[in-house]
């Protein structure tokens, strides 16, 4: 029996896919870090409130927020619902940032009236890899992005609409996710963010996740009560 246990311990451990969900029902945005713009949690959604009149070509013009997760997504899936204001009549746009190595480098998927666009983000610049026309609803759209190596598959409202690859050696292998608005007249709402993949897990979203330097502050807070 002991031999069997030793043998099992020697076997390489399989990697398990895990899940992270933030439905914003707790009313706070802890775990998220606003890089630019005005963001607030409201009615089970994370909302970008400030208008952006012209379509952004660089992240410096985008209202966006990054999930400060302790994990980074490599292969797996990210899904969420994006709700545009009816008054925008299809004119507002949203970004899902992924495999972000830092605040200025990674990929972005844009959902807009013409369809779906995937960008490679290099030092903040939004460089189009591919745009595919698709039927984007003027109000609510459910987006699922699947990542596998160089391949990126986009399901829009339950239908696989886009499959592209980034074969370049300079591609981003893994990174964090974020939400953004590159153009909007009205508030854009992001709902029920789900991330699934190897090494992903449900960290407490109402707690600072980068522990470095945070523990003394927390301890100080507790002592101060």
């Amino acid at each position, binding site marked *: 029996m002991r031999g069997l246990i030793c043998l099992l311990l020697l076997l390489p451990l399989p990697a398990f896919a895990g899940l992270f969900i933030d439905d914003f029902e707790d009313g706070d945005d802890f775990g998220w870090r606003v890089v630019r713009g005005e963001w607030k949690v409201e009615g089970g959604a994370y909302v970008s409130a400030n208008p952006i009149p012209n379509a952004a070509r660089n992240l410096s013009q985008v209202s966006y927020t990054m999930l400060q997760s302790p994990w980074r997504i490599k292969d797996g899936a990210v899904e969420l619902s994006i709700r545009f204001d009816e008054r925008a009549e299809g004119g507002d746009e949203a970004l899902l940032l992924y495999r972000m190595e830092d605040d200025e480098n990674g990929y972005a998927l844009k959902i807009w009236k013409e*369809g779906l666009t995937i960008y490679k983000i290099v030092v903040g610049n939004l460089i189009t*890899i*591919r745009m*595919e*026309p698709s039927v984007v609803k003027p109000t609510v759209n459910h987006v699922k992005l699947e990542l596998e190596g*160089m*391949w990126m*598959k986009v399901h829009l409202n339950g*239908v*696989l*609409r*886009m*499959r*592209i*690859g*980034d*074969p370049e050696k300079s591609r981003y292998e893994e990174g964090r996710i974020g939400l953004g608005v590159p153009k909007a007249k009205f508030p854009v709402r992001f709902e029920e963010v789900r991330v699934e993949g190897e090494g992903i897990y449900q960290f407490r979203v109402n707690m600072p996740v980068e522990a470095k330097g945070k523990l003394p502050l927390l301890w100080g807070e507790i002592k101060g009560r």
Partner: protein
Amino acid sequence: MRKGFSIVFVLIAIFAIHSMAFPAKIDPGKLGVIYYCAFPVTITLDGKFDDWPSVVPWHKVPHDRGTQPAPDDNDASYEFACVADENYLYVAFKVRDDKKVVGEDTGCNVWKDDSVEVYIDGGNEKANSYDANDSQVTIGRDNVGGDPEHPKLGGCVGQLQGPNTGTKAFVVDTDYGWAVEAALPLETWGIELRDGLVIGFNTHLNDDDDKGPRDHKLIWSEKDVADTSWKDPSVFGELKFVEVKLAVSPRDKLATVWGALKR
């Protein structure tokens, strides 16, 4: 007894002729990487496919292989095959398509409607931009009922544009969708046919389901991961010409054999 012997002899003769006509099998190549194109085989452009030898491989591109996948194979998928003779590269497409849309965009813009695309890099240089022997030839379903000698073609990119390649095409509607038999003149790309010659090659399908923009885009070459063949030959796959021994079409030969036996 004598009649039975004759029947057996005829069957053996048929088998022998078929075996002589083509090797038992042509290397199927690898989907998205390389296609082995048998020659010399001459095809009549009539949309019937009955003169395509059965041993010629067909590469099937399913609904989910491309930058704009379709929900299933009936919505959009295709298979293609190639053969060649001293003058032409023949490419056949069988396209599954449940909603056929044509006439909205024609000529250079036919890629927005139902159409297939053949990409040729005659020198197989795999350059990052089109040179004098690189072409995109787009054949729309709007050629159904048209003149196969002078089809309407798209592919208006580069120095050697699709409409100027001398490509002939016969396009027909079928019960599963539509089909194409095309003949691309080898001399257009400076291709001198010989066993083992490799050229750059790719095929695409554009599917429009509801007018407006294209709905699905399927791609054969596995290197063309972002639909850039229209500007970048380095993402093409390859086509290798393979000579088949004693290549004769078995069509119409059976009657001759039967006649000889009767005598």
